[in-house]
């Protein structure tokens, strides 16, 4: 493999900024076609197994800013971004949802995306599913996952196991038959080795500060290396794949205007902790079931629930919830996620390294969060929870349906801990320049050789876990770049 120390001067035909779901796939496609590809990544390479999933150690080593990032608003929305080789794919839950065909068709119509045939994208999804071993859990599910199934079944709500990009080594399954033995087929296991095998070079701990542009063309990038020194990379074409927050921020720092960073779309999420008579907590894995009865507007699933995260879920109403913490083994954390009508902004401010991120929920979003949390609490009661602790200030403990009504009355989104891990749509793709930052294939409007190829391109938040959509779109665009004779111009 060709991992190299970032140096003060580097060059390549194609520079790819970021190694997540968008960057790694782009690199593999272009390198396998024979292009000279240099991938740069701000974070480090962390082998799977070197950190405990969902731990503070993982947050230190693999998340941007230790996982403490927030979109300011009323309420503010806490979000997280991966910052390591493989980006978000290394730290995420691995739950795979192929992009819904109707959604792809709607994107094509509403954003005027050329040659955007849902069938083509779904054919790419087939390839991806084979490449990253998308599969269901062999054997039984964990107890927190079963809670979702049981509660939804009792209410007659649509639910199911979501497959993951995991391999389950038979040797491990024999000794420990549960989902936690899965090996996540993230980018460091799949597309990055593939890209490097085909000749791509990967420079770690190398942050691209800005692209040097002139009349819509970029020929070099200014970088900061791990030791704080500055560097320069020259290239013919550049793919910006830093994720939906960092990509627009980099474009703005490079003086690129247009529809960049104005339409951040996320899946805002509210949580609760549910306590059961028996121990069920699985500290290092998440449930694989999701409840889709009210999808795409509202979905329910399970969150990471190590004792630290249980404490966080109880924090908003600590005075009355705190005694539950000693029972964390009997507690698991669940979420209600919505597709939001509201939008956010990413703004680079002069002199600041990080962008300012803001988000505004609409009235409809707030009501959906309220009803979502109420329905999720009901589901927990139906699944046998003895106590439900909703994560908002002033929340009551919910033990029966009467408490549910009290809870619904007390909820306001402004008092809730709202968070998200799905960030999209800051450089939406399509031909309508007034509402799209990039063209139908990811080239930034008004630029000749600057492409975006990550979650920023998705025109809206998809209402399902987004990584599959990000990968399918990125592969499509990389192939189109080759077909159009990219890099030979």
């Amino acid at each position, binding site marked *: 493999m060709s991992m190299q120390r970032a140096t003060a001067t580097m060059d390549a035909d194609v520079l790819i900024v970021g190694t997540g779901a968008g960057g790694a796939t782009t690199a593999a496609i272009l390198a396998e076609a024979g292009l000279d590809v240099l991938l740069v990544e701000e974070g480090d390479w962390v082998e799977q197994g070197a950190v405990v999933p969902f*731990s*503070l150690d993982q947050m230190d080593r693999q998340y*941007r*800013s*230790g996982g*403490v*990032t*927030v979109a300011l608003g*009323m309420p*503010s929305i806490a979000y997280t971004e991966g910052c390591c080789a493989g980006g978000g794919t290394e730290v995420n839950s691995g739950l795979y949802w192929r992009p819904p065909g109707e959604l792809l068709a709607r994107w094509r119509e509403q954003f005027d995306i050329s040659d955007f045939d849902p069938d083509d994208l779904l054919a790419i999804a087939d390839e991806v599913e084979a490449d990253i071993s998308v599969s269901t859990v062999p054997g039984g599910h964990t107890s927190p996952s079963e809670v979702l199934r049981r509660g939804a079944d009792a209410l007659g709500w649509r639910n199911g196991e979501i497959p993951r990009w995991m391999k389950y080594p038979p040797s491990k399954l024999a000794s420990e038959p549960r989902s936690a033995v899965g090996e996540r087929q993230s980018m460091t296991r799949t597309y990055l080795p593939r890209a490097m095998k085909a000749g791509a070079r990967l420079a770690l701990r190398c942050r691209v500060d800005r692209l040097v542009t002139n009349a819509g063309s970029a020929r070099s990038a200014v970088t900061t290396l791990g030791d704080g020194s500055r560097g320069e990379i020259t290239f013919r074409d550049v793919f910006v794949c830093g994720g939906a927050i960092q990509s627009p921020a980099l474009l703005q720092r490079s003086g690129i205007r247009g529809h960049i960073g104005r339409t951040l779309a996320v899946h805002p999420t509210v949580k609760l902790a549910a306590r059961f008579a028996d121990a069920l907590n699985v500290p290092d894995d998440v449930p694989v079931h999701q409840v889709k009865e009210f999808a795409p507007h509202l979905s329910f699933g399970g969150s990471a629930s*190590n*004792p*630290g*995260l*249980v*404490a*966080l879920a109880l*924090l908003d109403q*600590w005075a009355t919830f*705190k*005694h539950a*913490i*000693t029972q*964390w*083994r009997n507690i698991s954390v669940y979420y209600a996620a919505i597709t939001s009508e509201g939008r956010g902004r990413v703004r680079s*401010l002069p*002199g*600041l*390294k*990080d*962008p*300012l991120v803001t988000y505004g929920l609409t009235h409809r979003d707030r009501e959906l969060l309220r009803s979502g949390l109420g329905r999720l609490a009901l589901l927990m009661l139906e699944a046998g929870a003895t106590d439900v602790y909703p994560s908002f200030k002033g929340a009551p403990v919910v033990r029966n349906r009467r408490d549910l009504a009290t809870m619904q009355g007390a909820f306001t989104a402004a008092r809730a801990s709202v968070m998200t891990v799905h960030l999209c749509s800051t450089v939406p793709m399509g031909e309508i320049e007034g509402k799209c930052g990039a063209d139908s294939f990811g080239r930034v409007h008004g630029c000749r050789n600057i492409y975006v190829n990550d979650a920023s391109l998705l025109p809206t938040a998809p209402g399902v876990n987004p990584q599959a959509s990000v990968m399918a779109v990125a592969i499509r665009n990389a192939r189109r770049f080759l077909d159009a004779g990219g890099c030979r111009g």
Partner: protein
Amino acid sequence: MQWLMRPVPALPIIGSFADRLLLADLPDLPPSDRRLAVDFVAHRVDNLPSFTRFGVMVLGFVFRGLLAVPGGFGVAKVLVKLPLPLVAEYPRLIRSLAFAYVWETWPNTTATGAKVAATA
């Protein structure tokens, strides 16, 4: 503004308030563990994105100033209960970082911070 962004370490600015807050919330947490939790919080604040860190450091100065006057911690506790969104976020950030640290590091900690023997 730049000097608030990075070079000034967070610990001297936020440490005393974080320590008082944790002492009030988790009175039975051993002082050495409390110190570790405060160090952890400060380390995280040092790594916040520039804009958030700026806000946290400004609030840190205000709260540190309050602690320097007699009865200041009481005033601070009243202040954070007022409907002033950013002010209330400050103790919340400290608590959430510290609590995540305490219970991840010592899962058998009671609601007051005491350690109990691990149950199977």
